[in-house]
């Protein structure tokens, strides 16, 4: 298995297709949510993923400040179904946050988390800044992380 970190323009066509396929599989099909996953925030983002042979089994998108929010953000956190419960989610977030604070020099990270993952994000130092609300039919909550 190999961790890969790339800007949008360095992704190969196959990597891009595999990323879009995994996100479609989880956020559209599994979560039964008819939304536009390919939202044009991919182009300014850094893409971090774990490759097992030719399959992407875990993925996270790191969005620099001033795009989705004025703060930096991370999202589209996904572990392929067959690979869940092995700690890849935790590793995605901690690697993602490390890249954002150390390489992208972001001090603050804001996320639109799915509410059922609130406790999970709290373990990384995220704090709730909104009530829970429904977006695209799913319960969300905004959370904020300050580095230092």
């Amino acid at each position, binding site marked *: 298995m190999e961790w890969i970190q790339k800007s949008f323009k360095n992704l190969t*066509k196959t990597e891009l*297709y595999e990323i*879009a*396929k995994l996100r*479609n*599989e989880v956020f*559209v099909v599994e979560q039964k949510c008819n939304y536009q996953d*390919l939202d044009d925030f*991919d182009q300014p983002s850094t893409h971090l993923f774990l490759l097992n042979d030719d399959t992407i089994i875990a993925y996270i998108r790191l969005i620099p400040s001033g795009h989705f929010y004025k703060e930096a953000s991370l999202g589209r956190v996904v572990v392929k179904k067959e690979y869940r419960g092995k700690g890849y989610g935790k590793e995605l977030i901690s690697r993602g946050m490390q890249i954002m604070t150390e390489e992208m020099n972001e001090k603050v990270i804001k996320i639109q988390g799915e509410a059922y993952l609130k406790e999970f994000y709290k373990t990384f130092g995220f704090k709730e800044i909104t009530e829970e609300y429904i977006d695209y039919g799913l319960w969300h909550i905004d959370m904020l992380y300050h580095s230092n």
Partner: protein
Amino acid sequence: MNWNLKAFDDLTASQVYKILQARVDVFVVEQNCPYREIDDVDQLSMHLFLEEDNEIIAYARLIPKDVLYPEASIGRILVQKKFRQDGYGREILKQAIATITNQWNETKIKLHAQVYLRDFYRSFGFKEVTEEYLEDGIPHVDMLLDKLISSN
């Protein structure tokens, strides 16, 4: 405006993104259908699209025989919302049929058609070969164009 006909290998990454984005816009969001749009049939298909200012106006996927069906097939046919009613749907289907029959030398083309477009496809010579059925919550019917029969 320019027409493109490309194998997956010849598409740029940015074209792949725009194509998938246009398909999700229409088949997932507009049709309210959370299904597997990105299905690994693309690598085997030819991609026909009309582009203007880096924007995809119309798109269709041309699938060789023995991938989805024993016959060649056309799918994911779309015209972006703001470009509808200008005849692009007819134009792209005409080009798709011409490509499959003239370049691939196929005599039969099968469609997994949405029922509300049945008359549109009939006008090109397609005929129903199944009853209507529901797939992903949307009524479909399979239709076949047989050039050996329809060109009399």
